[in-house]
């Protein structure tokens, strides 16, 4: 299984029956394909859809129905369409239970940077700032390190922040970590990595409890 698949499969387990969940562009939007078909959940897409379901078969795709990442989607029974003002009203009012979101950097205090690399990458903020600032529970989905092998789980973010102290949980292909008042606590680790290795590839200070699950 690829690193990406491992992240997405693990992330899918976070979604509980009855949840309203926004899936950010990138890894998170793919989580919709890993949900059990009978799981009663409402996926929110900020372009104005509640009740997102996977792409229908190719010959019946509706070109006027996409998610915020541009993927063709369908809706489950009980879905609704609405305008962008209502869509962000839902977000700002805290009506979502959970947002899954990508990251350039995330730190042990739950700060998130995922929109701008000054001088290199600044394509705009999209809906990320409002989702990060206003959703009660934010789970970051990210590879543990960047392409150069540098940790993306930091002591303190260096890039411009999307929102402060917003992240509850971080899921990578190596570990599941929770932001707590005491710091970043390791909850699960991949079977193919030792705790020592994990600590060595993680810039953030990891708190290792007695029990660590298997990712």
């Amino acid at each position: 299984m690829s690193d990406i698949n491992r992240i997405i499969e693990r992330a899918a387990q976070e979604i509980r029956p009855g949840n309203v969940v926004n899936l950010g562009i990138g890894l998170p939007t793919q989580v919709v394909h890993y949900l059990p078909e009978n799981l009663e959940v409402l996926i929110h897409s900020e372009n104005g859809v509640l009740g997102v379901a996977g792409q229908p078969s190719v010959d019946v795709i509706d070109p006027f129905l996409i998610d915020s990442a541009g993927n063709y989607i369908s809706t489950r029974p009980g879905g609704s369409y609405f305008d962008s003002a209502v869509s962000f009203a839902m977000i700002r009012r805290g009506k979502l239970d959970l947002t899954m979101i990508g990251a350039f950097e995330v730190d042990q205090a739950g700060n998130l940077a995922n929109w701008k690399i000054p001088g290199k990458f600044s394509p705009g903020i999209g809906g990320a700032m409002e989702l990060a600032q206003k959703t009660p529970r934010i789970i970051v989905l990210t590879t543990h390190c960047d392409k150069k092998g540098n940790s993306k789980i930091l002591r303190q973010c260096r890039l411009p922040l999307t929102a402060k102290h917003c992240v509850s949980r971080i899921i990578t292909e190596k570990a599941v970590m929770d932001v707590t008042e005491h710091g970043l606590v390791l909850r699960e680790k991949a079977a193919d990595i030792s705790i020592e290795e994990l600590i060595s590839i993680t810039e953030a200070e990891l708190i290792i409890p007695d029990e660590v699950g298997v990712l």
Partner: protein
Amino acid sequence: MNKQQTIEQAIAQIPAGAVVMVGGFGCPGTPFCLINELLRQGQRNLTLIKNDANESGIGISKLIENGQVDKLITTHLGLNKPVIEMMNDGRLEVQFHPQGILAEKIRTAGAGTFGFLSDIGIDSEIIQPEQIMEWQGQRYVVEMAQKAEFALIHAAQADSYGNLVYQGSAMNFSPLMAMAADNVIVETSCFGTPGSIHPSRVHTPSIFVNAVVVLPQLSNEYGVLDHHVRY
């Protein structure tokens, strides 16, 4: 009260230098035909307001790549390389807002109010210090209304008065822009007489619409983009 116009008539009202809102989030809701006519007529020095810049080679990206646009007010440029390059080169001025804030600024203009108090990004670099106001002991970001002279809108269905229905995720910014712009130009391929849309099903009431352009059919641009299909 019949607002039907030809596409040439409708778009010819837009002068050079105009501020133009364009509906659509990605493809759905993007009024490709109205945009193509604006490309053909060639008005320049435009300011465009749209959620995104479409992908390279379609929608408003064509207008930008053709040098007709001085300024873009938007939320995200996605992976549109030519537009990002023009921004980085200084050939295109780009003003970014958080998506819901742009939606709300447009909606505020549409509501005939002047601004609203927000806390989105209050301590981030996206908010300028001069936007911060203290009021009754609280700090707020003051976000001012975003108006426009024109809006270009795609509707799934319209009647001759200008009542509109949107389809699926093609609604997005369109009802807000229809309220906020002084001249609202709509394209549709499904056009009917007054009464063809039940009053409860109207998404944008006719009062906000100035011109309805009837498209003989929807071109390929409105179809499924193969590179977005998951096989």
